[in-house]
């Protein structure tokens, strides 16, 4: 059971207090999107073996959404940050790269 620190309230929360929301930084495709664009947004989710940026809600705590950068293989957590951003903040990118020098946030989850 994972432990993630909620960046909003600072609590080290156990997985049972959290609700997983899947891949982070999705770009919403609205009414003007093509079928292909909408399909990609709605269904084509990354499921990387490695570094993943994923949404979590501190559901049984402060109720706020945040994003965790973690490795799906080793379970290492590189950091958590508030969901109100479209890209991972610099300190998170640096924390991941300290352990995974080749990691590129824009290719996050590219299959191995």
């Amino acid at each position, binding site marked *: 059971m994972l432990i993630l620190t909620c960046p909003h309230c600072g609590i080290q929360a156990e997985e049972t207090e959290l609700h997983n929301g899947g891949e982070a930084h999705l770009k919403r495709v609205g*009414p003007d999107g093509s*079928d292909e664009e909408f399909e990609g947004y709605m269904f084509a989710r990354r499921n990387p073996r490695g570094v993943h940026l994923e949404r979590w809600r501190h559901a049984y705590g402060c109720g706020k959404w945040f994003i965790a950068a973690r490795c799906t293989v080793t379970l*290492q*957590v590189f950091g958590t940050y508030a969901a109100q951003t479209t890209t991972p903040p610099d300190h998170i990118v640096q924390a991941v790269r300290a352990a995974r020098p080749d990691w590129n946030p824009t290719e996050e989850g590219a299959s191995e």
Partner: protein
Amino acid sequence: MTHVPPFRLPRGGRLIDRSDQLGFRFDGRHLRGLRGDTLASALLANGQMMMGRSFKYHRPRGPVASGAEEPNALLGLGQGGRFEPNQRATTTALVPGMVTRSQNCWPSLDADIGAVNDWLSPLLPAGFYYKTFIHPRPFWKHVFEPVIRRSAGLGKAPTDPDPDLYEQAYGFADVVVVGGGIAGLQAARDAAAGGGSVTVLEQSPHWGGRTPIDHAGGQDAIDALLTDLRAMPGVTLRRNCMATGLYDHGYLIAREALADHDPNQGIPRQRLWRIRAGRVITATGALERPLSFACNDVPGVMLASAMRDFIDLHGVAPGQRIVVVTNNDDAYRTALIAADAGLDVAAIVDARPQATGDLPQAVRDRGIEVLTGSAIAKVKGRRHVEAVAICDQDGEGKITRTVECDAVAMSGGWSPVVHLYSHCGGKLTWDDAQALFRPDPDRPPLGADGQGIAQAVGAANGDLCCAGDLERPEGATMPVWVMPARAPHKLRAKMWLDYQNDVKVTDVELAAREGYASVEHTKRYTTLGMATDQGKLSNINGLAVLSGALDQPIPATGTTTFRPPYTPLTLATIAADARGEAFQPLRKTPMHGWHEAKGASWEPVGHWRRPYAYPQGAEDREAAVAREILAVRKGVGTLDASTLGKIVVKGPDAGRFMDMMYTNMMSTLKVGRCRYGLMCNENGFLMDDGVVARLSDDTWLCHTTTGGADRIHAHMEDWLQCEWWDWKVFTANLTEQYAQIAVAGPQARTLLERLNGSIDLSADALPFMAWAEGDLAGIPARIFRISFSGELSFEIAVPAARGLELWEKLHDAGADLGITPYGTEAMHVMRAEKGFIMIGDETDGTIIPQDLGLDWAISKKKADYIGKRAQRRLHMVDGTRWKLVGLQSLDGQVLPDGAYAATDQVNANGQRVTEGRVTSSYRSPTLDRPVAMGLVRHGPARMGQVLEFPMPSGAVMKARIVDPVFYDKEGSRLNG
């Protein structure tokens, strides 16, 4: 006078109290053991070597081990609700009055019919079921499976509720040491010396593990360590506490036995520990491996260490004349302890060409014969060991001599207990010198910080030659996977690997020949390691045999996956006190007690309990529902609607946000008005509905379904926080802040006007779909003119604390009007009569509002809303989608809910093509006939057509497609 059973040694037994005799029963026989016995040692002391039968061939079996890895001595314990099957006799402490019984045999352990399988064993190879029961196909379901099911399964599940108490507890420690042997205690002392909290968990009731048995001075060393540890701050020592699994980020589950042996003390029987460990040190020791020689499963053949335990710990002789067979020095300790106990050690059969260390020398000094380079060709005897035939290890089994004996102590070397280390990602490495897998310190399981969280010490780390600070000089082990080395098929077919599941060397070899090269596949094909011991005893032997058959090194074969729990947990322990009323919290509305007092028949809705109906006297539920409906249609009724979700959305951008959440245009709703709204998910499917009221310029109140309140609130927050975080909007879930009462029926206004409120309730002042605020009977109230019943209806929201007061005032004031409380079923039937949809009935997560004819509730003007893009997809605008219609059965019978309409066409599978299904179906008391709704292909264009609904009985029900509004189509009642 003290009675000494025949197999109890005259002296010795460090754990038993010879002055305290305990009576118990085994298969109805009254036996006696001693305080400190395990069930296995007590049975052995009574001469009961045979304790069970194997699963497949029903061969007689005795204990082969003395611990958690025991595959044979599994018994049913206790009676009634306390009965537990498959309990290991080797780890179960004897309790006075214990009632035990053997398993997997009929009519009795001694005369078991199923033993015929043993004679048929050449016909029952690996994969037998898969190969045999394939054809003819219908036979599997009707003949083979029922028969196999009856004969399968060990033990029997208890049927009565478990009467005992269980609990859970949370623990936190900087370091958790698992294993209270010498390695664990030393590691704990070292860890505690650096400060911080250290918890030591030991599975058995005794500290020290094997050290007190195997080493002179061992007990003193353990006692000294315990003395040190007890004086150190921050150290917690827990015995009877089995660490069963290590999970992500140092989450350790352990089961502590508190009153297993006397469940009548009023304290919990077991406690499930959920421990967050900063670091875990596995000092879990090692398990001895059997040797694979022919008939190595005859009762009386056991692990050398187990025999040593029975003699040394319990003063029990597993036999009077013992042969030791080994590939290592450690088994010589068993010979020494047996000889010290006065037992006859007939010979040591050592597979190694030479045995020259201190231990073999000590044995030779006792005059015990050591046969090096030798092997057991075969064990003679069926129900107990009678003799062993000796041969050369480096040969084909030619018998050189026969040695009479009544017990065999075998040792095939040791396997570190690596389970916890492996549970959440730690990797193993093959130690070729010692022929064992041990934890790879370079690839431990990792914590959140990326650092290793587990470390193995002592025998668990493959460190077999020293016990903590005590030296254990021993000669090298020689890997022996088959005995003798070139044993022919006839002998290999009698060499057991997995005792409980009857998997033999030849079964694994057959699997390899048939192409099962992966150890995981071989496991499932042969059932090797799938018994209750989960391969603890014999998996290494099995994968060594597989490696041999595949002609590859053992690490290339690898191990199967180690999964928690290490030993079985009862479901009661996992559930702990979350059962009965405490299983989940119950949500109660302010009027709950009133409903209860009126004899409400409850319907669970989420965590709520809502009155389904209020049966009176001898009335059944159906009659009560009909009465309630007619009372509402003709007079006035009240429904407790407090469970409906109430979410306030407020802020400068609230209107914009509401337009995204709902398919309707909510931003244009006027203050003081209500609108029925639909909410879809981004995939376009209808997820919730409810009435929205605009409370002020920047405030909307959203009513949701009872089950949807929390989910919809979370949905709103998700979009607000993660997509439109710059929008100035707050949401608040106020569901429990308000009690809400629906007052419905032609007399509703009359009733409310009697309560002297400040609100003008006339149709002009408060028309349908309007709301007003004021007070009613002295209670601050919001009155919504909305209707789910189709009648003149007011929903009144008041502060939760005053809900019961209003409810009672309504019933006092309406007595002469025949005011009737109605439940959820009356509500459901009335909305179906009116053709209103119900989330969960007409929707199932694949229905879009357009399917339900709700296009009028979808704004055409809005550029966007959640689900809009999805609803434009090809399949969503496909004209063949099933759409909502009413269904009128032709024979006056109620259509079964969920029934499918079938056409005359058949599909590729020979099934009739369906063209619709029933989504809601009731007998309408109002109309005195059935009403139903359903989704039908091209439904609205097919009014008047008749559909066929084939029934499971073969009969066919017919129904005509009609308008879904069965009652008051013009809406004159609801607008009244």
